[in-house]
């Protein structure tokens, strides 16, 4: 305690001293007793430096390769390092945190979420996964679709050269899983954004206005829900070319009814709350009441639904890929890598197993986050 106040005085007098903590990310947090934040920052910075050290050639080749994804990887690397360092510097040099305890609902929910170790683990997994996809060109020396000497490289078992072995065309499975993650995660992310936005708007409008509007919208939702989803997806995709774009749009447009149902239910109860009546008595127009006063109050359940939906959509997309209805080879997606290894499951188990594991880990991570958020955002836990 004394030491802490001593440091505070140091800062007040000397300003920005070049202490060790200013150079090593995370140290400032560790010294202030924030162990998890400190270790995460340290780990993040070390991981980035390790990537830089082990694949310096490829990082350097960014300037000559002339490829967008190399630049994206470069930006990610530099940005992550800078962010980790910046956060540390702020902890070291910034004024001691004035509002140590945030008071908005979001700040309270974040603290609640942080207490849930399993959910935080899910969050770490998810962040790691996204970082890995962005850094993909630096993490592997192979190209996902390049086919070399098939006879020499076909179905090699996992080794240091090929972490997850090679497939029937001699392509590195690790590379394909990494690049496939881009496809699977982006499809999940975009499709969920579409379905959540649409579902929230439809649900809020339906719940707020009620009456005929509600009846029409909800019967439409019932109709969509009562269709067997897979049959609907297969039909729609069969009508168009199977491509990433089609899959995103179709998934986004077929999954919103669930969100709309949740939002409508919440809005029906919120509408009767007095602050909505008070907002009307203040002379606010309906769109403003819906989007400023009601929607922020349903975001909790919506975020939970979105997180759980992400896992779900990744699963559905993998299923569609497996059936050959989604992303077409040679572009890798987790589903079609599994499909490609299906015939050789006995001779080359690794081709299908590793992307399968990737799906399991991702879906579990999203579900853990979703459950954590559900607990953290549950309004019944507070006033």
């Amino acid at each position: 305690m004394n030491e802490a106040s001593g440091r505070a005085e140091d800062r007040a007098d000397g300003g920005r001293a070049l202490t060790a903590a200013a150079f090593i990310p995370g140290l400032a947090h560790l010294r202030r007793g924030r162990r998890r934040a400190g270790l995460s920052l340290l780990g993040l910075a070390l991981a980035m430096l390790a990537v830089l050290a082990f694949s310096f050639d490829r990082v350097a080749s960014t300037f000559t390769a002339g490829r967008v994804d190399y630049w994206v990887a470069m930006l990610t690397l530099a940005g992550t390092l800078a962010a980790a360092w910046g956060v540390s510097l702020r902890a070291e040099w910034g004024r001691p945190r004035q509002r140590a305890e945030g008071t908005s609902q979001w700040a309270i929910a974040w603290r609640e979420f942080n207490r849930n170790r399993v959910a935080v683990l899910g969050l770490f997994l998810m962040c790691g996964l996204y970082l890995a996809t962005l850094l993909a060109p630096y993490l592997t020396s192979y190209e996902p679709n390049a086919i070399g000497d098939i006879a020499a490289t076909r179905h090699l078992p996992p080794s240091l050269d090929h972490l997850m072995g090679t497939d029937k065309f001699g392509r590195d499975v690790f590379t394909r899983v990494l690049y496939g993650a881009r496809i699977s995660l982006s499809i999940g992310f975009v499709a969920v954004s579409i379905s959540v936005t649409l579902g929230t708007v439809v649900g809020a409008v339906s719940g707020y206005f009620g009456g005929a509007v509600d009846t029409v919208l909800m019967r439409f939702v019932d109709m969509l829900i009562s269709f067997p989803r897979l049959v609907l997806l297969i039909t729609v995709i069969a009508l168009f070319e199977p491509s990433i774009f089609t899959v995103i749009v179709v998934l986004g447009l077929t999954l919103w009814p669930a969100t709309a149902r949740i939002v409508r239910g919440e809005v029906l109860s919120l509408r009767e709350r007095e602050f909505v009546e008070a907002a009307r008595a203040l002379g606010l127009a309906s769109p403003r009441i819906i989007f400023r006063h009601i929607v922020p109050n349903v975001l909790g359940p919506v975020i939970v639904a979105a997180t759980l939906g992400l896992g779900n959509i990744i699963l559905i997309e993998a299923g569609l890929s497996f059936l050959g209805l989604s992303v077409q080879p040679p572009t890798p997606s987790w589903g079609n890598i599994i499909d490609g290894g299906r015939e050789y499951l006995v001779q080359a188990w690794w081709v299908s197993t590793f992307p399968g594991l990737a799906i399991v880990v991702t879906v579990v991570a999203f579900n853990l986050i979703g459950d954590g958020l559900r607990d953290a955002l549950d309004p019944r836990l507070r006033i």
Partner: protein
Amino acid sequence: MSAPLLRVENLRTYFHTAEGVVRAVDGVSFTLGPGETLGIVGESGCGKTVACLSILRLIDPPGRIEPDSRISLRDRDLTAASEGEMRSVRGNEISMIFQEPMTSLNPVWTIGDQIAEALRTHRSARPAEARRRAAEMLRLVGIPNPEQRLDEYPHQFSGGMRQRAMIAMALACDPSVLIADEPTTALDVTIQAEILDLLARLQEQLGMGLIFVSHDLGIIAQIADRVIVMYAGQVVESGTADELFGRPRHPYSEGLLRATPRVGRRMRRLSVIPGSVASPKRWPPGCRFHPRCPYAWSRCREDVPPLPGEARASRCWLEEEPARRTGGWDELALAEDH
């Protein structure tokens, strides 16, 4: 009295439900002058709140304000105003505060945001200007450190503080009429007194007309200049606070007064008005109070008594046959004892 600010004439608000027409407010008339406080008293379910919401036209279907009702603010007929015009009246010229300060504020926005919202809507105020005015309002309603409290969330405010914040929100645009629907019912007695003082002070300071709704006669007696007593969707008695509490004329007002406990006077037991307000789907024929009235006789069961005049009146046949005012509540209480 100066020219009326708000005039409500023959207000009838019916709810057209599948089970029949609910006549929640059935022919209510009153006027409100600038700087005047009108108290509206009545049991739960007598139509007080619906009447208030009707003034702001906040009645949702199946509810409807019936065609020949008139609500005029100065010379404007609000029943004929468009929805857009009504929005510019709400929160700007006529404001309303509600019973439950705990749930009347949106939990996801700061107090400052919520007070500023009315200003941004009606006055197109810039954020900085709205914030300054919001702080001013918080100071006006007696919240210490307004600049700091602006950035706090409703859950950091106590019940009394929230009601003050609600009042600040309602008054931000300087309305000429404030409708307070049981603003103190959910609060502790000491906080109640503070809020009442605050409302009385603000009213004097800002010169607005105040409609104060309550089922608590003590509070009404304290704050109101004039009082109307509502029963079953109608006004049954009107008069100044002194007249009404000194010499109630309608049996219902009499009963209400008798049912009010008073500090310092020990009573063996509080008298009650037997029964409860009838269903608004089927008001009793004749005088709507007759099933519960100790004086009721045959005429009350058949003919509807009128409310003669507005200033001081009682909707009761006793007005025409005062000789029948015998026995009444005392006899009823005695009969119950045996």
